[in-house]
Structure formats: structure tokens, C-alpha cells
């Protein structure tokens, strides 16, 4: 019974809804449920064993109708659903032979720049790839393979259509186009003639198609400076200015902490392009609309070097603040040790009143002594007494000192009765937030595609950039494992784990970095240990051994002689 109803409802909806679109989801609409209950109730009434005779006749009649419906309706419904699918697959099969591939020239107004995109011809109609249009006009594309729904967005504007349907929805208004979009070998194609109609809602420029010369003219260029994005990496910040078409620009430094980019012929909405960043390097970005140019002012927190270049498809200007440089020294010469918390921030406090900030400072000082005495290299503490140091400043210090390792020392805590036990070591994870992962994937994919373009970051440069990040990750995990092993040899408490998490203090470090939780201060037994000088010494010894081993391994792997 329910099955029939779903189909029945579906059909009803399809009459009203976006013509011919079969959306499986719709059958679960609240209306459908209500009706389903109704019929279920009917059946209950019909099955009533106490029903009188005339009711029995009705019952039999109902059952016969139901039986017929049960058999017939799904068939009918299926037949109505399938033609859409059947037709389209049929069409692709036969069109495979008819579709011919051609090039289309794209000319931006004033004829300043041009590009070539692919087009396919099916039965005399020219189509272009949706993917190329998305790139060309910098749109955001969402694709639902089940419903065949395409959602294109650009800022607040949205266009929705279903592949194969001639109806499209522009910002909640439905409009009809003559030639619908279609599939070809898994790719979505848009009819070039109706490109401007389809993309009307999300396009900020005017497009004209000349079928004789096969030229697609993109003109108007209203708001050709479309957006500003930024990516904060470990040691550098990348600022990306999205352009609708190539525009000439000039980047300059007027003040030591200010980079100004003039985009000539640029038109923008300054409010949309201004950003607060505050990632330790860049304070903010502000955009201004001048008579003949868009001016973008990047305010830095301190004077830092920058590098600028352009990327194509989509066109954009890239500004790297404090770009990664190839390290020339493969020796570990400076180590920054970060005793956690301090001053107004006591860190975790044990039941006996032991404060994390005091214990970790003692361990850090002992570790500093061991390293400077035995390895003879420079050790910097982020704090040497009981005062407050903001998290950002701790790694900023390490970056400025050009440190080779950053080691943050903490004591652990947890809520509850058990309150945990043992030591554990963490290294930073960029990848744990979904966005970070997506951004990295997207940016890297784009950069990889650009290897051919002239001014773009070369493949070699990219590999270096990529390595600079991954190396720290690998090195950080190597160091974390060594630290955990080093502590394991010295301490008699539980060896918990090496783990990865997104630590605020580690996110700014431009070097291999770890955070070690030496014991649980919230566990009374371990709180007593933490207070014990001998225990503190053993922790420092364990950490020292790990660092010494790491240094030896690292320098050996770089082909350098072992330093005493």
C-alpha cells in the first residue's frame, strides 16, 4: 500500500513541480506521509473482522481495487520515470558518434586577452563544458549525482538546474530555456547559445556568442575584481585576488608593513574585499575603488618580505607574505622550549594545589641546561619566569629566532574520577579541520594544473612548497615518537600515545614542533610525582635523549658529520 502511495504522490507532485523532474526525495514530503496514514487507516477499517455484510462487499471491492492498483501503479509509475533516464542514455549513446569537438575563442572586452575553450557539437548545437564555465566565471559548483541537480553560486546569487531539464531556477524564480543542458560521457554540457541565459543569475559580466566566427565575447567586466581569499600556512600567508579576466597590476611596498596592489582597470565592491586576518603576519586587507583601478592594501603586523605572481584559470593575483625559503643549513642549531601557561594562566591545578605552570617551567629549565651543556647548541625559553605570554607570541618568537625545533611542555588534566594517567606527545595537525583539508586539496590541485603557465609557480617551486609543509609534519611526527620513547625509558608511568591534534600554540610554528604532556596533574598520584625534583629531572633526561637522537638522525640523513 505504501509503495503505491509513494508513486501516486510522486506523480501528483511531478504534475505540479519542475516539469518532468523526478526527485526521489519528494515522495517523503509531509503531504505524502499524511496521505499514507490515511490509506493505512482505510485498510485497518477494511480488515475489521467485525464488519457487517455490506461492508464485506465494500471490503472485497476495495481489496480487488487495491490488488489491481498494487500491480498496475508501480508499472505505470516506473514507465513514467524511466523515459527520462532512458531517453538521455539513448541520446548519449547515439550522440557519441555525432558529437564533434571544436574550439571556441573567448575574448574579453577591449580585446585585451583571450583564451580557448573546448566545445562539442550535437545535432547542430554547440555545447561547452560546465566545468570550464565554472572556472572561467569563478562560480561555485555543487553537484548532486542522484537528482542530477546543479547548483551554481556566486556570492549571494544562485542558479539551480537539473541536467536535461529546460527549467532553471534563478534566485528562487523559475525560468525556461529552449535548449537544456545535457550529459556527454559523464561531463555536463551547456548550450553555448543560452549560456548567458543559464548563467544570468550568477554572472557579473555580459557574454555574447557569435556562431559564425565561433567567438565568445565576455564584456562589461563589471566587478572584475571578484574576491580576496587568504590561506595561513605555517610560515607564510597567501593572499589570492580573484579576477574575472586578466588585468595588469603592480605590487609595491610603501611602508615596511604595508603592501599595496594596484589592479589597473579593476572594478570591485570594496566592502566585499576587505578582510581581517590577524594570523601573526597579516593584520588586514582593505580594498579601495579608485577611478581607474582597484587598490588593495595589505597591512602587515611587521615588515616581512613578499612575492607576487599571477595564476590562470581562473585568473588571479597571488601575494605570498613571507614566502617559504629553501633552508640552506641542515644543522639543528637553535631549539625553542616552551613551558606552558604562566602568569595569570596557572594551567591545570592538582588537588594538592600543584600548578602546571610551575612544574613545566622547572622541567623546561632543566632541559635547557642539559641541551646547552651536552649538545652545545642555543636554547631559547619562551618564558623564564612566572609571567603570561600569549600563545601566538610563543611561536612568533621561535620563528624570529629561526629555531629548528619547538617543544612545548605541559602537564595533563581531565575531568572525572580517574582523571587519567601517563604521558603523551602530540604533534600539530592541519588536516583535522575539514576546511583546512579541503582548502589544501583545492589549492594544491589548482597549482598542479598551472604548471604550464608562464608566471605561475613552477612545478619545482610547488614541490618545494609542498615539502616544506609535509616535511614539518613528518619531522614533527618523528620527533613526537622519539619523545614518547625517550620518556618511556625514563618514567615508570603509563605510556599513553602519540597523537595529532590542532593545537593553537603549534599552528604558528615554522619548524618541526611537538607538545608533550608529561603526566596527569589531575591524578593525585602523578601530581605528587610532578612535584618531585627527581621526577622532573627524569622527564628532562627523557626529553633530552629524544632531542639528541632526533638531531643525530636528522643531521645524518642530511649527510652531515655528527656534531659532538
Amino acid at each position, binding site marked *: 500500500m505504501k509503495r503505491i502511495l509513494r508513486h501516486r504522490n510522486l506523480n501528483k507532485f511531478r504534475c505540479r513541480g519542475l516539469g518532468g523532474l523526478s526527485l526521489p526525495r519528494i515522495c517523503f514530503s509531509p503531504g505524502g506521509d499524511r496521505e499514507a496514514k490515511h490509506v493505512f*487507516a482505510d485498510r*485497518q*477499517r477494511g480488515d*475489521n473482522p*467485525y464488519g*457487517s455484510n455490506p461492508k464485506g462487499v465494500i471490503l472485497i471491492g476495495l481489496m480487488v481495487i487495491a490488488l489491481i492498483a498494487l500491480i498496475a501503479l508501480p508499472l505505470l509509475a516506473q514507465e513514467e520515470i524511466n523515459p527520462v533516464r532512458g531517453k538521455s542514455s539513448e541520446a548519449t549513446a547515439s550522440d557519441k558518434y555525432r558529437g564533434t569537438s571544436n574550439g571556441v575563442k573567448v575574448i574579453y572586452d577591449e580585446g585585451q586577452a583571450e583564451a580557448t575553450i573546448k566545445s562539442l557539437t550535437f545535432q547542430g548545437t554547440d555545447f561547452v563544458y560546465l566545468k570550464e564555465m565554472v572556472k572561467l566565471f569563478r562560480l561555485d559548483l555543487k553537484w548532486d549525482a542522484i537528482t542530477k541537480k546543479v547548483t551554481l553560486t556566486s556570492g549571494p546569487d544562485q542558479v539551480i538546474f537539473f541536467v536535461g531539464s529546460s527549467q532553471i531556477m534563478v534566485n528562487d524564480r523559475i525560468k525556461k530555456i529552449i535548449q537544456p543542458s545535457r550529459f556527454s560521457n559523464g561531463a555536463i554540457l551547456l548550450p553555448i547559445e543560452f549560456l548567458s541565459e543559464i548563467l544570468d543569475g550568477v554572472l557579473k559580466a555580459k557574454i555574447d556568442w557569435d556562431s559564425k566566427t565561433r567567438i565568445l565575447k565576455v564584456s562589461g567586466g563589471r566587478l572584475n575584481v571578484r574576491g580576496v581569499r587568504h590561506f595561513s600556512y605555517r610560515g607564510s600567508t597567501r593572499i589570492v585576488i580573484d579576477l574575472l579576466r586578466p588585468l595588469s597590476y603592480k605590487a609595491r611596498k610603501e611602508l615596511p608593513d604595508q603592501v599595496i596592489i594596484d589592479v589597473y582597470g579593476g572594478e570591485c565592491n570594496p566592502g566585499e574585499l576587505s578582510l581581517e586576518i590577524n594570523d601573526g603576519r597579516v593584520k588586514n586587507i582593505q580594498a579601495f575603488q579608485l577611478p581607474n583601478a582597484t587598490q588593495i592594501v595589505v597591512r602587515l603586523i611587521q615588515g616581512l618580505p613578499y612575492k607576487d605572481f599571477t595564476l590562470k584559470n581562473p585568473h588571479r593575483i597571488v601575494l605570498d607574505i613571507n614566502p617559504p625559503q629553501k633552508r640552506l643549513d641542515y644543522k639543528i642549531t637553535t631549539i625553542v622550549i616552551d613551558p*606552558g*601557561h604562566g602568569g595569570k*594562566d596557572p*594551567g*591545570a*591545578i592538582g588537588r594538592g594545589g600543584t600548578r*602546571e605552570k610551575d612544574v613545566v617551567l622547572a622541567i623546561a629549565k632543566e632541559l635547557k641546561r642539559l641541551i646547552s651543556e651536552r649538545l652545545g647548541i642555543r636554547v631559547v625559553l619562551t618564558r623564564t619566569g612566572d609571567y603570561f605570554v600569549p*600563545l601566538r607570541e610563543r611561536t612568533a618568537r621561535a620563528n624570529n629566532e629561526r629555531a629548528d625545533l619547538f617543544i612545548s611542555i*605541559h*602537564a*595533563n*588534566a*581531565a*575531568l*572525572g*574520577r*580517574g*582523571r*587519567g*594517567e601517563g604521558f*603523551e606527545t*602530540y604533534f600539530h595537525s592541519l588536516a*583535522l*579541520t*575539514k*576546511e583546512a583539508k579541503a582548502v589544501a586539496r583545492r589549492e594544491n590541485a589548482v597549482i598542479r594544473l598551472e604548471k604550464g603557465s608562464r608566471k605561475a609557480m613552477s612545478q619545482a617551486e610547488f614541490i618545494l612548497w609542498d615539502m616544506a609543509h609535509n616535511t614539518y609534519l613528518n619531522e614533527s611526527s618523528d620527533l613526537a615518537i622519539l619523545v614518547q620513547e625517550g620518556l618511556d625509558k625514563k618514567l615508570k608511568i603509563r605510556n*599513553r*600515545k602519540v*597523537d595529532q*591534534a*590542532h*593545537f*593553537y*600554540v603549534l*599552528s604558528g610554528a615554522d619548524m618541526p614542533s611537538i*607538545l608533550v*604532556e608529561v603526566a*596527569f*596533574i*589531575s591524578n593525585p598520584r602523578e601530581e605528587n610525582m610532578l612535584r618531585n625534583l627527581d621526577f622532573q629531572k627524569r622527564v628532562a633526561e627523557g626529553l633530552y635523549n629524544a632531542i639528541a637522537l632526533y638531531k643525530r638522525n636528522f643531521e645524518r640523513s642530511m649527510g652531515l658529520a655528527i656534531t659532538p
Partner: protein
Amino acid sequence: MKRKKVLVILGVLILLIVAILLTQRERVFYRIPFLAPEENVKLARLYFASPDADYLRVEARRILREESITDEAKALVEELIKGPRENLDPTIPPETQLRELYIVPEEKCVYLDFNQAFRTNHPGGSAGELLTIYSLVNTMIDNLEGIERVQILVESETIETLAGHIDITKPLSRNAPLVEY
């Protein structure tokens, strides 16, 4: 005669029952009483800490089904603040109060705004912070349809960390490694 009488009585009785059933049909067939409370109850998956503070574990708990997703989210946070019933450990300081909760469907994100006590009464530590943060994040994402991210706020503002360790400036997605099944 006696048989006839019995049959007549029986017949009348049957007719009576039929009549009652027919008139009371709605009640008998449509409002099945023992199912009613079931409809108002939902089985929630609440994440609490394992006793050794190593992992998050699920406690299944019946909670009242709420009208809106916002109310349901609020109820879940309240349950987390109440702490576990089974042999697990709490993840949120009991003094914590949820000041406000709002859902932004386009972002698939729920914003949880706590009072200062959430922060000041937190024991700190990386393990403690991770357990607190992801007991909230996982509980929200697992129980609320359409929610994929959770942003923690204290007194309406984003904060860098709860107690100096884990970065909570941005909305967080579900953390699976921390969960022990």
C-alpha cells in the same frame, strides 16, 4: 430453549461489542495507547570520557523528543552537562551553563554559547580539552540531522582555546579517532 436463550444473549453481546468497536473505532485502531509515549522519546547518543581519559564512549540515553532541532540540540547539551549515568566520566564542568544555541542550516553548523564557568572551571590539559570539545562536537553531529560542524563560543565570542591547548576558533567537524567503539 436454554440454548436459544444463550445464543440470543451471545448474539446481542457480539452485536454490542461490534457496535462499541465501530463507534469507538478511532480510539481502538488509530490511537494505540502504548505507542504514544514512545513517539515522544528519542534515543540519544551521548559522548562521555572513558575512565582513563583516553577515549570518548557512547552512552545511549532516552531523551524527550523536542519540537525544533534547536530545542533538541539544547536538550542534548543539557544532558552532557548532567554527566554520564554509566561507568563513564563527565566531559563538561557541572557549573557550565548553555547561554544560547543557534543553528545556521546553510553552514550546517550549530553554535554553542557557554558561560564563563565552562572555561574557568575546566581542568585544562590536552586530554581534558580534547574530550570536552569532541564530546560536544560528536554528540551534536551524531544526533542532529544536517549538522556537520560545531562552533564553541564563550559569552557570545569565539575564543582561541578552552584552557590553552586545542584551537577552537573555527567550527569543528566530527573527530573519529578519539572514539572507542
